[in-house]
Structure formats: structure tokens, C-alpha cells
């Protein structure tokens, strides 16, 4: 390097990284919803993303109009949420969190298998009608699609925040997240709330599935984005929506900057583990994540 550091290139990589981080956050928000209210780390969130995207695309390819396909997929996701609550969560109530986590591993296998058994394993293209032309802001190129995704994420976060703050159901969610026994004592019905939350996570999965599907094509590897979302969650704390966003931004930016600036020293391809390394180093300093609640350890 001859003295000059290419700042506009740096900003371009950074922006690209931040925007792809938003895509991770989209998936991570689904986890946070469920973790906040039922204390379950839902490994099946990725397979729900796959299920949603695959159902939507297949309905579209059967010749349904966009809106009808979207509505049907929405209904399917809500039904899936209800079914999961009834068949998996309710029988496992009061079990150790790690047991529930392993149950969601099984659930992930069931959902992935079913989605592909019903709709087949071929790769589908998905066109949301957003042209991916790069926009230029004073010399820095930014992808339109990424901006659109960031906009969707922003809308979703605002909607969820308003929902949690101003509606009765949202209030009930917060009560359950705060203290399950107290929530039960004042007459909130936990099974209903869990079913609603899982349905909501299904809707978040649908949004993430559409955006990721348009980006990568709808195929099995969509369910692997769960692995991209986990370091984001670890970084941001499992129970904070703000954490999911900030964590996503940090992971996205680090991944892209790392790949561009230090990837060569490792022979490239470090994206697969860099996020985990960052999350781990961070955890060793602050074990409950950036925004996570500090847990009181009980004996």
C-alpha cells in the first residue's frame, strides 16, 4: 500500500457488510421472539424460513397470484406455529431449557424433511420484483435490494416494538417473558401465548424466507442461515430485539471487512467461522451478550 488507504472502498465494504448484517438480524429476530417468551432457543427457526419460502414459491409456481400465495403461506405458518405448541412445547413444559433446545433440533429435521417431501428438493428462483441495480452515493455503491431488505427489517422492528408496547397481547407477552409464574397467577393462559408467539415467529420466518430466497434461491441451504444467526444472537443476547439488530450489524460488517482485509492471510473462505470467533471472543468478555439480561444464578 503506497501510503493511501482507499476510504471510499472501505466505506463500500462496510456498508455492504452492515446491510448483509441486517439480513442476519431478520432471522435472529425470530429466535428472540420465542426465546423471550418461552425460554427456548429455537434451532428450527432456519427450517421454518425454508418451509415458508418453499411453500410460497411452490404456490406461486402453481399459478396463484402473489397475494393469494402470500396469504396461504401466512396461514400455513400460523398453523405450523399452533401445531408446534401443541405437539412439542406443551408436553415438554417445565423441562430444562437444554432439553427444549434438543427438541427443536429434532423439530428442525422434521420441518426440513416435510417441506422438501411436500414441495420437492429442486432449487426455485424467487423474484420479488425489486431490481438489484447498484445505487451510487458520492462514489459508494450500495445494492438496492439490500436497502429494501434493511427497510423491511426496520418496518418489522418498529411494528414489533409497537406491538409489544401498546397492545394487550404484547403486554401479555412481556408479562410472560418477565415472570411465567406471575403471569399464570394473574390468569394469562400460557399455551395460548406460546402458540401466538410461535405463529408470530412463523411470520417473521416468512419475511426472512422471502428476502433470503430472493437473494440465494429457494433451496435446502436456506435452513442453514440459522447457523449465521446464532453468532448474532450470542453477540446481541438471546432476549433482545435491539441486540439482534446491533449483533447482526457487527457480525455482517466484521465478516465482510475480515474477508476483504485479512482473508488473504488465511487463504480466504474465513466467513464460515469468523462470526463465531468474534462472538466467542466477545462472550469471554461479556457472557450475557451486548443487551442480554444478566441472569441471576440460583442455587
Amino acid at each position, binding site marked *: 500500500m503506497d501510503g493511501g488507504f482507499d476510504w471510499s472502498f472501505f466505506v463500500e465494504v462496510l456498508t455492504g457488510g452492515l446491510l448483509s448484517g441486517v439480513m442476519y438480524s431478520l432471522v435472529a429476530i425470530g429466535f428472540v421472539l420465542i426465546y423471550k417468551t418461552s425460554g427456548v432457543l429455537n434451532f428450527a427457526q432456519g427450517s421454518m424460513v425454508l418451509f415458508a419460502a418453499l411453500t410460497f414459491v411452490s404456490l406461486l409456481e402453481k399459478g396463484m397470484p402473489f397475494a393469494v400465495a402470500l396469504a396461504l403461506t401466512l396461514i400455513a405458518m400460523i398453523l405450523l406455529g399452533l401445531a408446534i405448541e401443541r405437539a412439542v412445547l406443551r408436553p415438554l413444559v417445565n*423441562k430444562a431449557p437444554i432439553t427444549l433446545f434438543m*427438541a427443536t433440533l*429434532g423439530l428442525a*429435521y422434521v*420441518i426440513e424433511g*416435510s417441506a422438501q*417431501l411436500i414441495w420437492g428438493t429442486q432449487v426455485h428462483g424467487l423474484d420479488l420484483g425489486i431490481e438489484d441495480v447498484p445505487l451510487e452515493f458520492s462514489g459508494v455503491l450500495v445494492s438496492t435490494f439490500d436497502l429494501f431488505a434493511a427497510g423491511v427489517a426496520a418496518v418489522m422492528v418498529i411494528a414489533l416494538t409497537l406491538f409489544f408496547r401498546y397492545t394487550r397481547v404484547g403486554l401479555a407477552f412481556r408479562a410472560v417473558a418477565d415472570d411465567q409464574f406471575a403471569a399464570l397467577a394473574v390468569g394469562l393462559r400460557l399455551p395460548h401465548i406460546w402458540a401466538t408467539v410461535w405463529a408470530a415467529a412463523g411470520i417473521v420466518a416468512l419475511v426472512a424466507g422471502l428476502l433470503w430466497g430472493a437473494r440465494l434461491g429457494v433451496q435446502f441451504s436456506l435452513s442453514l442461515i440459522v447457523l449465521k444467526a*446464532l453468532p448474532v444472537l450470542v453477540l446481541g443476547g438471546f432476549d433482545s430485539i435491539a441486540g439482534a439488530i446491533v449483533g447482526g450489524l457487527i457480525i455482517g460488517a466484521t465478516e465482510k471487512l475480515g474477508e476483504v482485509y485479512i482473508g488473504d492471510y488465511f487463504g480466504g473462505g*474465513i466467513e464460515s*467461522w469468523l462470526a463465531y470467533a468474534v462472538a466467542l471472543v466477545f462472550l469471554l468478555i461479556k457472557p450475557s451478550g451486548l443487551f442480554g439480561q444478566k441472569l441471576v444464578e440460583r442455587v
Partner: protein
Amino acid sequence: MTAVTIESRKPFSLPGWAATAAVLGVAYVGVPLLASNYVLEALLIPFLALSLAALGLNVLTGYAGMVSLGSAAFMAVGAYTAYNVALRLPGTPLPLVLAVAGFAAAAIGLLFGLPSLRLRGFYLAVSTLAAQFFVQWALTKFDWFSNGNSSGVIDTPPLSVFGIGFDGTIGRYLFALTVVTVITFLVHRLVISQTGRNFIAIRDNETAARVIGVPVLRTKLLAFGISSFIIGVAGVLWAFAYLRTVEPAGFNLDRSFQILFIIIIGGLASIRGAFFGAALIVVFPLVLSRLGSFLLGGLFDSGVLDMSQRIVLGALIIIFLIAEPDGLVALWDRFRRRVFPGT
């Protein structure tokens, strides 16, 4: 971790001892005489390797209560270390190769076990994924590990101990069986020792364990080390005795999940659980494919088989966690008590 009862039978009371001897007798004499090459190659050798890996994971997850999603990475470390030792130091006796592979896996296990000193539960499970991705990346990226082989699939050297070849099907079976028997015996001694009780104490209540003087940090790292050692040796069996090739793709995340599923289905914190679970995992795809083509005929192609395998496996996990958290071992014990009361 769910509460798991410790087996209260005395370690070497007569029925237990006799049953073990009977199983070993059948495994060493009956099986080689009766089983066909197909059964040995496709069922028994992978069964032995997976059982050993599950046994290793059970030390960590079942006994010490730390969930790991990176088992396949430690298998890979074991397999590649064994390959490189055999390649670069020809003439190293096979038992030594196994030991070196185990220690290499244990070293990597200790490294990735360091977060366990501060993290628990999910956070720890997620951090073990780092091991999975990092090891797989390193093995594909640096071709020194595969001796510059561009395809990444490398053949393993012949197996021989002190001049006796173990390359036939029966030979490889007996080799794997012996390794598994020795390690199982050692694990059995371990879990009834003070160290084993320390593992369980930490799993059940870390603070209480600290209060009664269990060295928590050292014990956690020890669990990671021992567990990865065993999983590393299992990796050597998987590559050398079963596949006879070494490739990174065989040690992916799905393999890690498979090993975790084996101990959930077989029974956490139980030595027999690893074997019961591995048997089910190895046999059930075959049963499913027979059953599927019998019921559905031509509709049941390999794609459908693959997907229905995932569904059934996932459903089994959920069913076992709900209905029988202690796994197949608990089912078997109940069955035995009903059929042979008094044993």
C-alpha cells in the same frame, strides 16, 4: 440437564459381569463366524465407530452436562492426525497412532472447551459450533493435512498391529471391536471414580459442587479433554476401519447432530445408551427403506427415503425427549424387569 438416575447396580455384580462376558463372547466369536461381509461392513463397523463417538460425547453431555455440537470436528482431528502420523512417520505402531490421534483431538477439544469456563447451556452449545466450522475449514483449506491431495479424499494406510494384518473385513471388525472394548472398560471405570462423580456433581448443581470442593474449572476441562480423546479415536475407526478414506465432508455438522441424537435416543449418562442409540441410528435407515419400498413400491425413491429419514429421526428425538428422556436404556431395563423379574 434433566435429572438422570445413576445406575445403582454394583459395578461387577454377577449378572452384570456375566452379561458383559456373554456380549463380548458373541461379539468376538459368534459374529465373525456367522455374520456376512455385508453385515460387518455396512452395519457393525459403522455401529462400533459411532458407538465410540457417542460414548465420548456422553462423557461430556450425559455425565458432565455440557452439550456439544462439534463432535464431528473432533472425529476429523483424530482421523487426520492418524493419517498424517501414519504417512509421515511410517512404522509407528498402530496403538501409538491411535493414542497420538486421541491426544491431538483432546488438545483441540481443550482449546474449544475453554469457553466452558465462562459459558453455560446454549451459549456453550453455540460456541462448540465454532470448533465444527473452524476445523472443517482448516482441513479443506490447508492441503498439508491431506498431503496435497486435490480431491480431499485420501485412502488410509493398511491396518496392522505388530505385524498382524487387520485388513480383511473380519480383521477390521475385530480391530474396531477391541478398541471399543478397551475404551468402554476405561470409561466404565472413569464414571464410577471420583472424577466421574465430579462430572455428575457439576452437571446437577455447579454451585453446590464448588461448595463441596470439586475443582469445577479443572473438571470441566478434563471432561472436554477425555470426551474429545475418545471421539478422536472414534474418528480414526470411522476413517480407517469403516470408510478406509479420509475426507472433511464426512465430518460435517450432520455427523455432529447424529452423534448427539444417538445419546438422546440411547440414553444420556449411560454407557449402554451409546451402544443402544448407535444401533438404532445404523439400523433404522435400512428398515425404513425396506418398509417404504414394501408399502409404496416405486414411489419410494431415494429422495423420498432421504426426507422421510429426516422426518422420522426428528420425530424420534421429540418423542424420546417427551416420553422417555432416559432413552432406550430405560425402555430396555423396564422390559427386562418385566420379563425376568429379580435380575
